[in-house]
């Protein structure tokens, strides 16, 4: 039984959610990985160092430069016969590609697994994490996306995989990449950060999100937001933590001006420690918080920044 894991990478390093997907694959048996992109030799070498990885299949070419689903799905289908399981992290990248692969293989995908029970059986959250369903697949091949927050990622070093080139796949003309606008940030990515500080509707506007900056800087935190803050246009969509945004499970999650709707809790309730800062002491967020401060965030945030500064 061997699994193939499609890896998220930035052409140089393997992203943390992908390392969690490798960890899930290793629970099933042996794991090969696929690195697709353009100019990805460094990423392929990084992939070969992941502990437990057998083969690193590298698809290096312009067709794969921007992670378009159509060529990637065709490539995975071409590689599929050698594998019992195809996996990817449930990032935007993985969620875009894997269901397309599943359809081409006539398989019902298993999205966002939180645990592996056996080769056919998996646990996955439903209804914004209000239920945990144990599902058993009757498909011969399994196509799976992995909830990164539920699996400790494999280390970056220690493995010795072998690198080989992917087979060529026919070119496609259905889709074409035009441009990307990636949020530039010196901060860690939300799904990989050890500490996350998120703002909600209570922040009142986008400018006020700057109040989170000194605290995030001090703690090495990523900055996130609730759907309410995203809907109100305070911050871009990719800040969103929750059922339909990013799922995070950092060591420390600080929720500022967030009431704690079910949909938000779905994205962060597996955090190790949760701190809530809210002026409404009845806010549901306090029911999941380890430490709560009832107070005006415009007073508490500067005080917290100063307290952390004091060291």
């Amino acid at each position: 039984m061997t699994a193939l894991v499609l890896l998220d990478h930035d052409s140089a390093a393997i992203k943390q959610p992908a390392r969690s997907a490798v960890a899930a694959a290793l629970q099933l048996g042996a794991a090969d990985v696929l690195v697709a992109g353009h100019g990805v030799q460094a990423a392929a070498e990084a992939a070969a160092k992941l502990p437990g990885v057998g083969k690193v299949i590298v698809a290096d070419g312009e067709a794969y430069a921007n992670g378009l689903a159509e060529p990637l799905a065709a490539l995975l289908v071409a590689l599929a016969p050698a594998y019992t399981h195809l996996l990817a992290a449930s990032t935007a990248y993985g969620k875009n590609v894997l269901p397309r692969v599943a359809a081409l293989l006539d398989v019902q995908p298993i999205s966002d697994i939180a645990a592996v029970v056996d080769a056919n059986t998996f646990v996955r959250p439903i209804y914004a994490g209000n239920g945990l369903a144990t599902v058993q697949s009757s498909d011969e091949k399994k196509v799976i996306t992995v909830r990164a927050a539920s699996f400790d990622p494999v280390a970056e070093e220690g493995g010795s995989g072998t690198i080989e080139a992917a087979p060529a796949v026919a070119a496609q003309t259905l889709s074409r990449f035009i441009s990307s606008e990636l949020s530039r940030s010196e901060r860690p990515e939300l799904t990989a950060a050890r500490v996350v500080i998120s703002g909600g509707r209570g922040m009142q506007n986008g400018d006020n999100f700057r109040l989170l900056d000194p605290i995030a800087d001090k703690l090495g935190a990523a900055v996130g937001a609730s759907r309410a803050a995203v809907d109100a246009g305070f911050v871009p969509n990719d800040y969103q933590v929750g059922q339909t945004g990013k799922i995070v499970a950092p060591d420390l999650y600080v929720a500022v001006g967030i009431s704690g709707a079910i949909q938000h809790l779905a994205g962060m309730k597996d955090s190790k420690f949760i701190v809530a800062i809210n002026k409404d002491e009845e806010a549901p967020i306090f029911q999941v918080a380890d430490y709560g401060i009832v107070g005006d965030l415009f007073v508490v945030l500067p005080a917290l920044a100063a307290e952390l500064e004091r060291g």
Partner: protein
Amino acid sequence: MKILVPVKRVVDYNVKVRVKSDGTGVETNGVKMSMNPFDEIAVEEAVRLKEKGIATEIVAVSLGIPACAETIRTALAMGADRGILVETDVELQPLAVAKLLAAIAAKEQPGLMILGKQAIDDDMSATGQMLAAFLGWPQGTFASQLTFADGGITVKREVDGGMETVALSLPAVITTDLRLNEPRYASLPNIMKARKKPIETLKPADLGVDPTPRLKVLKVVEPAKRKAGVKVADVAELVMKLRTEAKVI
């Protein structure tokens, strides 16, 4: 251009979902059901495209028990022109839904299909991508802006760490992100008008699709509950506890 918009009947967004005590699923008896919120965004986008003269006809499709006709009525009240209900008691999973939708697309020949990016019940986020695969069409998932030009469609979409723009040939499958639009409320006159709009009813067999689920749900349990912690007096106490008790900073 004809647009097909699949709409799913789900437990309403505001309902606090409860897992059944026998572990077979979640309680849906006597619970308010509504259109999946991302599907509302899909219907709204189609209606706006019709208002702009880009779309000529909007067909709302739902699949499942007879009550799914209500979900189609909601879409009709928002501005869809007619409905198709694929009626079955079988629990439909994304693979079967995508096959059924592909079969309907083969009959209807739409220029575009707009779906929600995810249903808030099973949280699979798979049907649109699978439908695109079955049809051999390009996919623009998690879309926050659509622009039509030169016989194709340009889609601004969410990727990890930001946004990207891709150009797709038509026909294509789009799945909606939150930012695409804000759905309208149907007006009373439009709700009345929707009652007269036609809904065609089909069975999976009419479309040559076997809808048998491939995933068997063995059990559904409630996740472990977090315990509420303590309220601290001020930031000094908070930082002290984070350092010495939680040891996370």
